[in-house]
Structures are given as structure tokens and as C-alpha cells.
């Protein structure tokens, strides 16, 4: 499947040996060893939480490994920060773009590498070289254009060209196609192939498996922080083998079918469409836990925000037979509450105490003709701290000092205090330790058993399979399939759908 000329003796440009990273209570990366051949596209795959991003952070110097070693071109490599990584020949294309919109393409390409005399820029071979590099990988970009006039895809290519011309021998790309259209993806792939042919090694991280088969030479699979396999892709027998390696034996015994789900459709959404979503329709029953499962960028957060009135969307949403409002305020009044994706920036008031955080979504219960009922606030705080088992010595503790799991419980407490009938939970257990995770799942089940409805938006298969009664599978903004959870659920099929298996992938 690869038709470029490889050097006769494959040399290893990057090798990791026994790499381990421990967080308090969690081993995110567990004794991982593999090596990457020079001049190849090496893919890194694994479920969310498999340890990919931790591994990448260690490669780019953002994190220091607990133990183990890395080497680049045979010599020891231990970057202390991103700058070290760049000096060591490893450049990274992050999901957020690191180009300066206000400068030209050429100015961006030379940023930080300029030659100068007395502080003034002087012409050097650098300009010619970076322009040549850019031309070689994408001739259609004008070096004197302002970056603000470029598309996201073109900006990415500018970043890639900068990495290539800075002499990087390895470029790590973290989900580079998440925000690109199909045509742009094609163009990016052409760029990556040209890079490879010019002896640059690309470490390619993506959840979209068909991309990996289109592009990759070799693949490394991680699962639960452990290294599962490193193989030439020509030796991999299709998506199914890759998916099997990613999820291993099914371990989803958590789920037990719940009986008290009513037939009453509490929420109906018809034809939701916006810049991300494409004609999404579904309903949620009273007392039901539904899951929305898909990759990053598939539209999970957009659905949650649309239901909550936080984003504009075309289509209709009915809650308890009435159209929902156009603002979070109206949604909350109607009985919908959201646990947002980013709890620190969107969910919590981190410099306020637990006590002050909890009542924010239900001012009516708190107010006695506008006067704050401190006793209600205090009692609610004590009540939820005990009920949700929030580990703190005081309800006056600032929420920024709580652990991730306890912070998330405070956000839950906010929503519970709002007396919501429908809870929208966007990545409810992201960055939460295992113990708190189990507790959060118990809270969710109890809520549903009490007749509330819950929608979970998650990119963790284990999570949706463990707790949801019904699962909607999303791929690139559309609702591809609906799965009733149960003992005979076909996990590989689900993974196949959300990684693009329905839309002409390699099967």
C-alpha cells in the first residue's frame, strides 16, 4: 500500500522505552515501548483514556515521564518544555492553531527563527528555504498573504511547513482533521505524503480509522495506558482487527437493563441543523438514560448546547410538549440543566466556595422577595455534600481546591438544586478518578430511577455502554444509528459506525 522508496535499512527515528506516567491514583501510561521508523507515517490509536494524549505530552515536553526513556535518532531525548522538543527535532501540530493571524504566511514561517542585525530583519537564505518548503508541500498558498485570509486547513499547512522548515525530523499531528471538510482532508493527506517522501516522519493521531488505513504505514495501539501492538498496516486485517485491538475483550458488564422507563416522550428534537449538526432528530423518554457517543467534533457538545438554548439551531425542540426557550435561562426554567464540557471554565465559579456555587441555577428557591435565604443555601450545601459524598472539610472551601471528581460533584449539585427533569451531561467523567466515576454513575442511575431523564454526551465507549439505556451514534454532525443497550450489544459495530464505517470507510 505504500509506493514510495524507503531507505534499504529502516532506521528508527524515535523510540520510547518502558515509558510510564503516574498521576495520583492513576497510571496513565504504563511501561510503553515501541519505535518509529524514519520517513513513515506512524499512526497512534486507542480509545479515549488509552493514554495517547499523555504519551504525546511527554514527547512534546509538556509532561515529564515518571520512568522510562525516549530517544531521537539514537540519542537520549528528555524535553523539559515545548521549546526543547522543537530543538530536539520534534514539532507538534496541536488541535488549536498556533499561527498569528495578523502576520503574513512568510512572517509566520520564519517566526522565532529570523536573522537580524541590530534588531532589524535581514534577508537570508531562510526566507528562500521556507518558501521552497511551503511550495513543495502546498504550492497554492501565497507566502505574502495574510494568515487571517486563509482557511483553517491552510493555516494547518502553514504550521506544518513551519515545522518542516525548522528542521523537525518528526511532526506529531493530534487529530488534525477534526475541523476540516472532506476536500481539505484530501489536500492535507497529499501534504503529509509529500512530507513523508522528503524523509520527515509523521506521527498521526486520529480516531477516524479509515484515515489511518488511507495514510498510515504503521500503527501503534494503546489500551488502558498499555502498549498493545505496533504493526505494519499492511499486516493488519482491516478495521475489525484494529477495533478488536483497541477495545480488547468486552468488559461492559456494568450495565443492567432498567425496568422503570416510561413511554412518555419527554423531549423531542426534529431536524436540528447548524454549522456542525446535520438534520439530527431523536426523542428521550421519561426516566431514561440516553447516550450520545461519537468522536471529538462529531457534534455531541453542539447537541447538548442546542437543547440547552446556549447555541442557535434550526429545527424544533419540544420539552414536555412545549417548545424550549432560546436561552439557558428559559431552558432551566422549563426543567433542563446542563453539566458543561469544561467544568473549570464553564461549570464552576472556582474562586467561590462550594456553598456559594450550588444555588446558582435556582434563584427562585433561594429568594424571599429578592432577599437571599442564607439558611436554604447553607442547608442545601450540607445536604449535597453529604448526599453526593463530596470530600471536603468545609462547605466554605473554594471549589478550585477540590479534586476533579469533587468539582464535578459540585456541578452536579448545582443541577440537582435546580430541580431539573432532564439533565444534559457533557463528558461527565472527564478527568475524574475511578472512585468518583463510580459514584457519579450511581448518582445518574438514582436520578433516572426517580423519574428524571438523563442525556450523556460522551466520547468514552465504556461509559455509554456501562450506563445508557439507549445510545445514539454520531459521526461528523449526523446521527448515524441508534443502539438499544443490552448484554448482546455489538461494541465493534458501534466503534465502526462512529469512526466513519458507515460512510464508505475501508471494511
Amino acid at each position, binding site marked *: 500500500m505504500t509506493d514510495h522508496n524507503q531507505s534499504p535499512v529502516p532506521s528508527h527515528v524515535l523510540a520510547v522505552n518502558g515509558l510510564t506516567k503516574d498521576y495520583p491514583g492513576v497510571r496513565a501510561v504504563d511501561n510503553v515501548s515501541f519505535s518509529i521508523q524514519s520517513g513513515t507515517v506512524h499512526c497512534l490509536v486507542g480509545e479515549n483514556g488509552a493514554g495517547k494524549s499523555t504519551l504525546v505530552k511527554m514527547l512534546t515536553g509538556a509532561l515529564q515521564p515518571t520512568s522510562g526513556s525516549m530517544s531521537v535518532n539514537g540519542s537520549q531525548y528528555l524535553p523539559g518544555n515545548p521549546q526543547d522538543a522543537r530543538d530536539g527535532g520534534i514539532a507538534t501540530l496541536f488541535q488549536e492553531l498556533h499561527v498569528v493571524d495578523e502576520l503574513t504566511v512568510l512572517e509566520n514561517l520564519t517566526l522565532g527563527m529570523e536573522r537580524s542585525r541590530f534588531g532589524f530583519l535581514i534577508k537570508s537564505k531562510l526566507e528562500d528555504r521556507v518558501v521552497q518548503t511551503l511550495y513543495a508541500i502546498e504550492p497554492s498558498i501565497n507566502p505574502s498573504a495574510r494568515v487571517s485570509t486563509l482557511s483553517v486547513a491552510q493555516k494547518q499547512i502553514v504550521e506544518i511547513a513551519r515545522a518542516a522548515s525548522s528542521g523537525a525530523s518528526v511532526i506529531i499531528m493530534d487529530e488534525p482533521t477534526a475541523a476540516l471538510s472532506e476536500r481539505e482532508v484530501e489536500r492535507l493527506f497529499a501534504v503529509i505524503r509529500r512530507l513523508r517522501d522528503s524523509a520527515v516522519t509523521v506521527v498521526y493521531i486520529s480516531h477516524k480509522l479509515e484515515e489511518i488505513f488511507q495514510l498510515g504505514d504503521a500503527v501503534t495501539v494503546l489500551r488502558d495506558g498499555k502498549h498493545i501492538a505496533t504493526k505494519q498496516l499492511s499486516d493488519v486485517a482491516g478495521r475489525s482487527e484494529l477495533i478488536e485491538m483497541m477495545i480488547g475483550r468486552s468488559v461492559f458488564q456494568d450495565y443492567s437493563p432498567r425496568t422503570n422507563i416510561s413511554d412518555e416522550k419527554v423531549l423531542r428534537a426534529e431536524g436540528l441543523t447548524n454549522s456542525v449538526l446535520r438534520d439530527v432528530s431523536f426523542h428521550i423518554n421519561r426516566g431514561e438514560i440516553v447516550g450520545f457517543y461519537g468522536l471529538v467534533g462529531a457534534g455531541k457538545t453542539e447537541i447538548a448546547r442546542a437543547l*440547552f438554548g*446556549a447555541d442557535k439551531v434550526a429545527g424544533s425542540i419540544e420539552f414536555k410538549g412545549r417548545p424550549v426557550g432560546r*436561552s*439557558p*435561562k428559559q*431552558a*432551566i*426554567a422549563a426543567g433542563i440543566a*446542563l453539566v*458543561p464540557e469544561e467544568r473549570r*471554565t*464553564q*461549570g*464552576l*465559579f*472556582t*474562586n*467561590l*466556595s462550594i456553598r*456559594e456555587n450550588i444555588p*446558582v*441555577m435556582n*434563584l427562585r428557591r*433561594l*429568594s424571599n422577595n*429578592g*432577599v*437571599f435565604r*442564607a439558611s436554604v443555601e447553607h442547608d442545601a450545601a*450540607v445536604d449535597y*455534600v*453529604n448526599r453526593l*459524598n463530596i*470530600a*471536603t*472539610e*468545609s*462547605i*466554605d472551601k*473554594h471549589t478550585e*481546591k477540590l479534586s476533579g471528581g469533587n468539582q464535578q460533584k459540585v456541578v452536579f449539585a*448545582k443541577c440537582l438544586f435546580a430541580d431539573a427533569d432532564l439533565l444534559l451531561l457533557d463528558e461527565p467523567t472527564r478527568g475524574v478518578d475511578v*472512585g468518583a466515576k463510580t459514584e457519579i454513575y450511581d448518582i445518574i442511575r438514582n436520578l433516572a430511577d426517580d423519574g428524571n431523564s438523563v442525556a450523556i454526551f460522551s466520547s468514552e465507549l465504556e461509559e455509554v455502554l456501562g450506563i445508557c439505556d439507549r445510545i445514539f451514534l454520531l459521526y461528523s454532525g449526523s446521527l448515524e444509528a441508534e443502539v438499544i443497550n443490552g448484554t448482546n450489544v455489538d461494541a465493534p459495530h458501534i466503534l465502526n459506525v462512529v469512526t466513519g464505517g458507515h460512510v464508505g470507510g475501508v471494511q
Partner: protein
Amino acid sequence: MTVSANIGRTLSDDRRKMSDESFITLLVASVAVGLFLFASLLVPNFFQLLNMLNLVTNNWAVISLGIGVSFLLVSGNFDLSVGGIVALSGVLSVWFAQAIGGSNALSTGLGLPYWLAITCALGGALAIGALNALFVVKFRIPSIIVTLGTMMLARGVAQVVTQGSQRNTNLPDQFGVLGNMTMFDTSVKLPVVFMLVLLLIAIFIERKTVFGRLTYWIGANPIAASLSGIDKERHITYLYLFSSLIAGIVGILLASEFKSGYSNRGTLMEFDALVIALLGGVAIAGGFGSVVGMFFGAIILAIVTSAATGMVLSPDWQFILKAIAVFLAIVTQTWALARRNR
């Protein structure tokens, strides 16, 4: 999860712990007391009850303005327009109340009844507040630039109305009453009582009402506030309107006290209102601070400047002292909070 076993008991034990805000307020209050004692050592006859009272009564205008400014700062917004509004509403109240047919342009007004004149003047003040809200909330322009602009706009209108000087003739007799009326058979004047009442209302709103709490939530995290169903646009609009209303009343009282509408009245008051809020521990990043702290900040500023006005140093020192005081306040408060929460 062993903590949870005895959580009920530890929780109630810990309720007595002081909040960061009370801690900073106490810090500011002790600095104020310390400075007062220090000034008493340096300045003969400084240590007198009358002197202490004067520190408050002489600064009723700035403290009143500081209330609106502090609330806005807590919500994460500046208001530098209050000084301009003081000039505007004062000048307008005079112009509206002046009788028709004076000897020249500056002694001829609109001849409105006094109550109508001050109502209309307050309308002018509120218009500036509405403009602030429009630019900050709707256009999302940084509040510092907006309120610098409206400060000039308000003062500019005042200068046009007074032709760059002042209006003080042809006024009805009752015009001077509000600003000079003494209360409760003492020498305390109405404006001081106004300030004290305002202060009590503000403390009540800040501590005891949902409105006060909303201000903290919005300042602490505007995104989370919106996603929690708070209408922050409306709340910030209210805050700008209240701040401009207070400034409008202050302007009318000052105009009444001096029986004149002077276009340069209130110059640098916006700056002083900001200074006392910062001295009092109100954080520029939003979500932190208290009106009581601002009040003690005003005392500190009053001691520092009254020491400068002729007692120890020349009056020219006041700008330097203000700069040093704000600098020290910010540095020490940041340091003290970091140390406390370590």
C-alpha cells in the same frame, strides 16, 4: 472516602472560618486604624473625634460614587464615567431650574419647577449609564475605553451648557436646600446622611440579596454564569444604571450645596472612586470585594490625602501618595491572599 464518615461534624465546626473577603476587609480596616494612629503621632491635634468624623463626612461624594464603581468592579467592569456624570447632572439641574429671562445666556434656564428639574437631570445621568451599558454589553467594547469616552461626553455636555464655566444665578430659593440641610438637630448635612443610607443599602444588597450574589457570580465566571441561566447582560445594564443614578444624585447635591452648576466639578472623582475600591480590596479581575472594604479604603485615602493637604507634606504629594497606596494595596493583598490560601 474516609473523610465522608465524619463529614457532618467537621462541616459545622468549620463554619466559623472567615471568608477571604472578610479577611481582606479586616486587613484594610486595620491598616486604616493603624494609619490614623500613625498620623495622630505625626500631626498635633489629629487624634480627635471630630477629625475622625470629618474623614468620613468630607468624603461623602467619593464614597457614594465608590459604591456603584465597586459593584461594577465586582462584576468585572470599570466605570470611569461617574466624575463626568457628577458635573453633567449638577449643571443640568441648575440649567433646568434657572428662571427664564435672565440678563445673559448663562443666567437664563428652562424655568422648570425644582422637582422636575432634578428629575430631568437624573434622566441625563441615567442616559449616560444607558450608553455605558449599550457599548459594554451590546457592542462588547472594553469598559475602560467606553467609560473614558462617556466621561468626556458627559463633561463635554456640561461644558457646553455652562459655556465652559458655571451657572449660578437666577436660581429658585429652594435650590440650595438639599445640599445644605442639616439633619437631626446636628451639624450633619443631608448628603452625609444620603451617603450613610446608601452605604447601608449597598451592604444589605451585597450580603443579603440575590441581586448582590448575582454580581459576584457574573464577576467570578461570566461564562459559567450564562450557562447557569443568569442574564448577565441585563444585570450589568442595571449596575451601570445604578452607578450613573448615584453619580447623578451626587451631582445634584453638590450643585445644591454650592448653589452652582460648575462644569469641572467632579474632576478626578472617577479616579478616586476607583482608587478607594482598589484600596479596599475589590479585585479588578471580578468576583471579589466588598462595600465595607471600599469604605475603609476611602478612610485610608482620606488619611493619606489629609496628611498631604498641609499637615505634613505639601498638597502636591497627594498624587504620589495615591499611587504608592494603590500599589502597596494591590501587592500586599495579592501576597496576603496567596499566603493565606497556601
